[in-house]
């Protein structure tokens, strides 16, 4: 079957690609566009390692088809830092040692950024429920919660 032509915007830049009907957005990002920062941990929407935004909405890229991104704005981990300056979430993940192996980190940062855009001052419980779709097997989440708390505080200008 012929491939589909998709015109989309990824991290602010116009991007066109050809994809098969059954290819997920995650496959397209990783295999067609070499944007390998989004990770596949489960391919079933259970681990959040492929968290991206589509028109500002947080989704698992493994549950979205590549063709569905047509005409949309896609945000991935590769677009979080601005030039050579890290986003406060990235900075606090480093300062607070919120990663061990680092495979879940891109998903957590994308998901946490999405939370803070909606709720700049979340409680610990709100953070924990928002991030419940992102699995981390290394940290026990403690330092991730600390990093998000500190990044939120910095983003609020405190």
């Amino acid at each position, binding site marked *: 079957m012929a491939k589909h032509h998709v015109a989309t915007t990824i991290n602010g830049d116009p991007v066109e690609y050809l994809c098969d009907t059954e290819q997920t957005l995650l496959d397209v990002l990783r295999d067609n566009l070499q944007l390998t920062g989004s990770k596949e941990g489960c391919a079933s929407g*259970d681990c959040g390692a492929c968290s991206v935004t589509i028109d500002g909405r947080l989704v698992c890229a493994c549950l979205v088809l590549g063709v569905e991104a047509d005409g949309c704005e896609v945000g991935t*981990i590769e677009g979080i830092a601005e030039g050579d300056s890290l986003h406060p979430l990235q900075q606090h993940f480093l300062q607070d040692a919120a990663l061990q192996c680092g495979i879940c980190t891109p998903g957590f940062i994308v998901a946490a950024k999405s939370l803070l855009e909606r709720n700049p001052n979340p409680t610990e419980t709100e953070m924990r429920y928002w991030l419940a779709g992102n699995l981390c097997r290394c940290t026990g989440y403690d*330092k991730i919660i600390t990093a998000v708390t500190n990044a939120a505080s910095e983003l609020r200008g405190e």
Partner: protein
Amino acid sequence: MGKEEQFDTATQSVEASGYKVVGTRPIRPDGIEKVTGRANFGADCNLPGMLVGRIIRSPHAHARIVSINTDKALALAGVKAVVTSADFPEIGPKARGAGEAPVSFRDMSRNIMARDKALYDGHAVAAVAATTAAIADQAAALIEVEYEVLPHVLDAREAMKPDAPLLHDDLFTKGLDPKPETPSNVSQRFEFGIGDTAAGFAAADVIVEHDFTTQCVHQGYIETHACVANTTEDGMSTVWASSQGQFMVRNYSATVCGMDITKVRVMPAEIGGGFGGKTTVYLEPVAIMLSKKAGKPVKIVMNREDVFRATGPTSGGHAHAKIGAKKDGTITAGELTMEYEAGAFPGSPVQFGCMTGYAPYDIENVKAVGFDVVVNRPKVAAYRAPGAPVAAFAVESALDELAKKLGMDPIALREKNAATEGTQAAYGPKFQRIGYLETLQAAKNHPHYSAPLGPNQGRGVASGFWFNIGGESSAAMHVNEDGTVEVVTANPDIGGSRASMGIMAAEVLGIDVSQVKPLIADTASSAYSMLTGGSRVTFAVGKAVCEAADDVVVQLRERAAKVWDVDIEAVEWKDGAAINTKSDSGESLSLKAIANTAGKTGGPISGKANINATGAGPGFGTHICDIEVDPETGRSSVVRYTAIQDVGTAIHPSYVEGQLQGGAVQGIGWALNEEYIYDDKGCLQNGGFLDYRVPVASDLPMIDTVLVEVPNPGHRFGVRGVGEVPIIPPLAAVANAVAAAADVRMTDLPISPPKLLAAIDGAK
């Protein structure tokens, strides 16, 4: 103790120790790559012309493979190669590999690609490589395997029965006298002990005895197994793989494929979690063989279901603990009998369970017996302190019951019997300086231990012990002309070890940690180093790094001596500079200055150390857990948790705390949620993160930590391994807290809501 106080404590200990870098918390050198998505993990490697590999797996728990027909798959356009066990050399039973636990290459080969029989649901039987993923999937479906389904067995005690289905007709139980004449599913019987337990129980005033059951659980690393192999016409194969040891991948893959070790070069990818589960190979030899046949690079990435079906897990099994004590709490005897499920091939960690169960205690009479039992489940792999958590679940739960019967505080009971320096451990050695008692004291004094509890809440404590290991390790250090230093080691960074290597190098060299760049080399660019496991890297590879730095310092002093025209003995190294002790003005040359002129004083400066590290210090931990039980649903929630551990010296305290927190949470998952569930045909029913539920952020509170620092005399900075101990206490800490909250003793893990509800209803 709050987080900030904890931070201050660590900072103070740095000042008290006199270290300048050890004990500080610099940002990890590989951090930016990992928060920006640039870091390359196993599945992120791509080569031009690369094919996609797929593994075809048995849908049966136990079946004879009658035939495999690959004709239709090979005829499909885009299919470049198919392999089955016929493509791999037959390996004899005597081929064994060194490592934390010796491995059988015959079993490894047969686990990677089934020969004659499929031994579990998910056992690989064939593999295909094609130009696209879609074609590879199509081809996989075209491979015709004819099976003769055989009866299966999943449970250790069932598999030990004389009429149980037999997995291997050449397996005769080792460790029995006389040697058995008929094969069975019991691969080995282990026994460790001291004294006379019968006499010990006769002297006891109180005896507790319980039978415990646990289920098979998976390491649950978020990164699935992945590799790329490129085998070329000269017979060389380059492999990019995520693993716990590039040399392990090289040696195991070469052996399984019947190649010389030098024909395989392994490039280490970043590793997305391992916890022991990536200390063996599954895909790499298959990718090497597919690539050899196809003449192109082949990438294989496992999907999550196959990770659950065919990798990991650690043993479920049974444990029976019996403990006797005097009225004053002195333990007079302890017995432990355990049967662990090894999976389809021998090699459960039951031996380690036997050795560790009573290790925290100074008991005169101990007997531990273990049975390693093969069943139709995936062959187990190491999982953080392999074997110890289940043993500790039994012993530490029984101790909780004992404390209750004696009317003693559970920490006081442990203090009374705690192993200390000089205690003869039942498994063999006499302990040197250890910090178990200190963890108990820290637990007793922690505000958590005396904090009030709410309704339906209970508090539990439990302890754990792990050996920790050293082993063969290498490090090289290159001094650049601008005074920066590369530290090259060959162990994957699984949780921040680059940061620890950099800190230790900077401390010995006396320079700022920002001037040190830790790197991880491939197998052709470094001397051999044993895999990342056994909590050995910061200790053993760290020792090699320190010695490589010593080597560099000697050379720097030599160069300075040459400049000053003095004897090297007259040159001291202090704070990153050579000092001329013969000079009245205190003449000095910084590392940077010496590096800058190295060309004129003898050429490049680099150091190395290749060692077999000994002197690993055992680790002990004590955890406090508060559980709230919902009496309506039987759901247990962890409401407060504190992990206390003797960590020797924390090189980078944040990553040490992280080990304690992560290990504790894996243990909490083991206690409350996680288990392999099979149907009546022996097929795994919950091979995904939706149904195999690891703890998520909303399940948990913050995990408080206390780093007790009793330096290990076997390391210049006092390092003890820290990664494994934290998963040992939680199973019992949770169960003991549930017992306190709901007044029922749960002896069967996981303590899932329906199970607990039934127990509560049964107790009414």
